[in-house]
């Protein structure tokens, strides 16, 4: 019986400690639920994305906070610049207004580096000969409030480019 009590204590104490650690995470759940919209939700990779980049709209975050928008890489996917085991890459940075809403568009550097995975010439120009565009698929996108820790999730579908008409 005493052993059962001790074992129970051994289970309860770590649970309490972990609970305290995750208190901050719990706090982030308080308040409105954060939402994220990816515009467009579906696209194919083309140079047009430099001029009209993928944009992220978010609501339900803390007021006046910085937002990191990141793409979750599917298991086993490799990306230029990311180390083994890294599964997140930043796509955009935004700032919320007084109401906790934000809009952030991908900068050309982000589109070139993370969608096209270009190389760079010594002349500081993107080298498309070394490009390894990310494969078509559905990619999970997270937006995280860097002060509130609130997280909203959405997805971006990359489809194959349309076939050229002969």
């Amino acid at each position, binding site marked *: 019986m005493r*052993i059962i009590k*001790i*074992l129970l204590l*051994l289970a309860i104490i770590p649970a309490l400690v972990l609970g305290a650690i995750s208190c901050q995470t719990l706090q982030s759940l308080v308040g409105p639920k954060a939402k994220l919209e990816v515009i467009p939700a579906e696209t194919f990779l083309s140079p047009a994305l430099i001029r009209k980049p993928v944009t992220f709209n978010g609501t339900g975050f803390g007021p006046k906070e*910085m937002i*990191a*928008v*990141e793409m979750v890489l599917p298991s086993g996917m490799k990306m*230029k*610049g*990311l*180390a083994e085991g890294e599964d*997140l*890459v*930043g*796509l*955009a*940075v935004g700032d919320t207004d007084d109401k906790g809403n934000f809009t952030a568009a*991908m*900068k050309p*550097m*982000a589109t070139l*580096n*993370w969608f096209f995975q270009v*190389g*760079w010439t*010594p*002349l*500081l*120009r*993107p080298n498309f000969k070394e490009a390894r565009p990310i494969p078509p698929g559905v990619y999970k996108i997270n937006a*995280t409030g*860097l*002060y509130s820790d609130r997280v909203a999730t959405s997805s971006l579908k990359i489809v194959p480019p349309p076939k050229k008409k002969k």
Partner: protein
Amino acid sequence: MGKRSAIFLSIILAVCLSIAGLSSSAFAKEVEYLSLADYTGPIAGLNVPADMGLEDYLKDINAKGGVDGVKIKLIGIDTRYDTARAVSAYKRYRRSPKLLVVNSISTGIGKAVARLIERDKRLQLVPGDGEFQAHIQRTFIWGPAYQDAFAATLDWVMADWKKKGKSGAPVIGYLSWDNPFGRELLRGGKEYAKKLGIKLLPPEYFPPGTLKHDVYLTRLAKGGANYIHAGGVDPTPTNVIRDAHSLGLTKKIQMTCGYWGPTALGIGVHAKALEGTVITSFYQRGEESKENKVVTDLWKKYRGSMVKFNEVYGMGMSWGMTYVAGLKAALKAVGYDNLKPDDMYKAYQGITGLDKYGVQGACAYSPTSRRGSLEVKIYRVKGGKIVPITGWRKAPDAVSLHKF
């Protein structure tokens, strides 16, 4: 011992071992340095050798037992010069209690991360944006501000002008990248030129990656420039001067550059075109750098042959020297167990005067200064080599001339 007691003790032992296994790092005294770098992006050519210097310096310190037994872990992140990636990477490491310093490779990255740095009570290093000196916070620059170094170039220009027997003040052209970094030198630099009576032509800005600079150079030449200051990060200044040379402008116009002007990278490709170019630098360059035993001994120890040596390696070592000095002071103040990032921030402000073995001027960080050093040295490309033409000299404070 009964069977039940043995089972009980085995369970306790297993729990303890698994906890120990999960938190093995808790037993090794270790602190972290996060480099938000560019290893495969547009300015990798300079960032890679700089981080090699930092890496080797810290490796050497660790090999000697660390700082008072505390080892330093360098976390290098390849941001590919992208701010979103850098912010995401910092987000990943920001809760690490022993992450003491973050080095951001670009002004843009630095400005984005600075807001989190303030919140997290940590310290950040960035290249040379004068705004961080104008508004003292937790971001420190590597040397004098960009505009300070530009003002030092203007001082040299005035002296050179007079040495040539000319009266009055010369006309100066300025061209650089069309981005905040490109414009930064004139935030204070423009005011300093006015103070000296120098006529500064309207600046020419071009997008990074521009292949030819003839249009901008021709406009400055037609404007009557006696001197042209080529901005951007090497190899951009090298390419600008290459174009000026092709246009025949270098025969009558003196080309000057700031501290990201030609290094071994540019000299290796366009030595002839760069001949006579004047470079104002806060870190030791060219032949001098190759003669600095502290720098070359470390390079040879970890990298071998000097063939691929670039002088920014020494600048990377300098980041390591500052970190080690700051860590020593922080450990002395609070000890390892109580050490927080804020203690490193406090320590950096007290390492004023730290000697950098000739790599750059003495450390100038203090409660009122975010400048890594105050001095610059003027170099000239002669016979395909970068040689000093002055000693270390204090750069004017151009930051204070501008309203930020």
